[in-house]
């Protein structure tokens, strides 16, 4: 079984400031890693994913994440946030070669960008 922990349930941040959302996972097998964003009253949208290769992954809207295997982390960062980045962010994993490819999600981090 695998689990995903997002250490911060809420992160307030001022506009144009940087933000980092922390994600740690535990799994007995290798996993693929994902970050999803959920804007108010909308469904989930994929921000970025790590499958293999370079551990620094760039996604949409200026977000990036770094996979650290030794620390089993996949933290999400953005150097300068906008008001429109106010949303809830979910880290998720899929076990490689597991049947079904179902996503296991963390508890989510609410980002509130203040002017």
């Amino acid at each position, binding site marked *: 079984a695998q689990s995903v922990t997002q250490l911060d349930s809420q992160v307030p941040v001022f506009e144009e400031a940087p933000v980092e959302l922390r994600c740690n996972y535990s799994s007995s097998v290798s996993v693929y890693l994902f970050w999803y964003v959920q804007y108010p009253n909308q*469904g989930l949208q994929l921000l970025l994913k790590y499958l293999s290769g370079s551990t620094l992954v760039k996604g949409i809207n200026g977000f990036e994440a770094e996979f650290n295997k030794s620390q089993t982390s996949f933290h999400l960062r953005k150097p300068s946030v906008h008001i429109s980045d106010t949303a809830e962010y979910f880290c998720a994993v*899929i076990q490689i070669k597991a049947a*079904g*490819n*179902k996503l296991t*999600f963390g508890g989510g981090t609410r980002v509130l960008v203040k002017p």
Partner: protein
Amino acid sequence: GAGVSQSPSNKVTEKGKDVELRCDPISGHTALYWYRQSLGQGLEFLIYFQGNSAPDKSGLPSDRFSAERTGGSVSTLTIQRTQQEDSAVYLCASSRTSGSIDEQFFGPGTRLTVL
């Protein structure tokens, strides 16, 4: 093209009633997933369909929950004898195949409230 659609967007029901939630996946997507988003449990996997294979029902919380997918396209999630703890947002997602590298596209969800 059209994304994943779900209906109804909101459903209020009385405890003990049955409800049906519908999902229309993206045309041509062979894999379909149901997830539930609730305050107490976060985002959790419910059931997965891939083509004509038997569905993976490992995430269904009780035998009151069932789902079917007709003709490999539209899916219906049925909850019998609803309980207050069933109140949640039910999210449907589809992907081109069941490959874990294929992005899961999410619908806007159905918000279920059990009174």
